[in-house]
């Protein structure tokens, strides 16, 4: 459970002492299942701070929207902290003008799993200390096991603790089991080629190209995305099989060695499309081939931007 008062106190201190110009966190949403990302500029505003397992967005996605001179404070969980490190390495914001309030994360709840059990009309969701969640809905009260509600990315999370925060509020949690992270990729790899392709087509071709996955991902900050290019038109612009497959293939591939497996893309998708099975494969390859884990610090370059002669892979014939 997060110590909300301690978080509020720290955020207020930062603003009062002028350590930062703004603190990015969450505030209560207009609907109980969706807390909204919030940008606090004064200590009074911080009273609206809310921080619970329903905060489903990766706040690092807002980092690239503010000028680099702005001093920003941000509540970061494990994946968010690593996203910030990856962005700092890519020169998107100087680390010295960032103040990261680390929060060990017990996992984000997928609101869709709540709605599946309690129906759409949810009045309130309260996390309880014994790792359960009390949901009050029009159709009655439900006490649900929190682990059953976790988003898949969080269920297999390896780095719940912030890695390079300026302060950590809350006790550190045990690191995840790497085999757990590999499980999804291994299971998918066991399928036959045609089964994998059928799954890929089934997921990709339900897309309506609203680009919520792109806008929710902190690493997608290009001024002009490859889908907006006209000459040449890399992928088809429509929702044809060619366009949809091209979009899903290349969007995920652009996150190779940059994706921190936070799952914000899947949570943002309005069509419930599965896509972490693409990025998890790429992350797993980066770990297996180059022993690289993104965002553990803000200095080691990702594999695609380093050149070494001693690669053992198929390349050197």
């Amino acid at each position: 459970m997060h110590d909300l008062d301690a978080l509020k106190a720290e955020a207020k201190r930062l603003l009062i002492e002028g350590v930062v110009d703004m603190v990015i966190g969450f505030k209560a949403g207009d609907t109980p299942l969706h807390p909204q990302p919030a940008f606090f500029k004064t200590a009074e505003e911080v009273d609206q701070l809310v921080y619970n397992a329903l905060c489903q967005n990766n706040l690092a996605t807002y980092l690239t929207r503010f000028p680099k001179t702005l001093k920003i404070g941000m509540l970061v969980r494990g994946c968010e902290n690593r996203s910030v490190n990856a962005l700092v390495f890519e020169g998107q914001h100087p680390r010295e003008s960032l103040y990261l309030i680390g929060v060990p994360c017990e996992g984000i709840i997928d609101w869709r799993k709540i709605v599946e059990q309690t129906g759409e009309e949810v009045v309130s969701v309260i996390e309880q200390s014994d790792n359960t969640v009390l949901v009050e809905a029009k159709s009655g009260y439900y006490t649900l096991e929190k682990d059953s509600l976790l988003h898949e990315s969080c269920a297999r999370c390896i780095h719940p603790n912030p890695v390079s925060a300026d302060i950590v509020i809350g006790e550190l949690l045990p690191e995840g089991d790497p085999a757990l992270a590999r499980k999804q990729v291994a299971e998918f790899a066991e399928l036959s080629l045609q089964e994998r392709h059928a799954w890929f087509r089934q997921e990709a071709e339900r897309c309506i190209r609203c680009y919520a996955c792109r806008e929710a991902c902190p690493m997608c900050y290009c001024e002009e995305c490859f889908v907006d290019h006209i000459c040449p038109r890399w992928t088809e612009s429509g929702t044809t099989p060619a366009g949809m497959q091209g979009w899903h293939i290349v969007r995920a591939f652009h996150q190779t060695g940059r994706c921190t497996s936070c799952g914000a893309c899947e949570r943002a998708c309005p069509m419930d499309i599965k896509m972490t099975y693409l990025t998890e494969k790429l992350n797993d390859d980066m770990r297996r081939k180059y022993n690289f884990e993104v965002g553990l610090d803000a200095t080691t370059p990702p594999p695609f931007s380093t050149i070494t002669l001693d690669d053992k892979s198929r390349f050197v014939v």
Partner: protein
Amino acid sequence: MSETPKLVLFQCQWCLFSPADQEWVDTQLPENIHLAKVPCTGRINPLYLLNAVQGGADGVMVSGCLPEQCHFKTGNIAARRQLEEFSDYLNHIGYEQDRIRFLWLDLQDRGIIQKELAAFEAQITALGPAHNLATRVNETAGGANA
């Protein structure tokens, strides 16, 4: 019955040091092999491979110089991690990894590219046509342009 496979050759224009080989590639390349000459393998963006694959290529060969012999020093190393990972990644979603091959030529080599292309073509014929991902082929070329 296996019709001749459609292949795409991304050839680094420096790697065939012998004029005879380059002449063969430029003029007598078999009908079913589409040539795309690039200034360096480092110039090949995975999107080129995707365009070839979606355009209906049954096999893609990337030929370039051996690591130390690149005309641009490290050009051929820069992209190889991306291309290799991209071929691994396409295999993940249904385009066999063996359909993408990398060929590194020594400057002294002679007559290698013809043999390698023939071997590659045989291998791809065995694998059969690649229907998966061939979605950007114009109807007139018989593509699955649903």
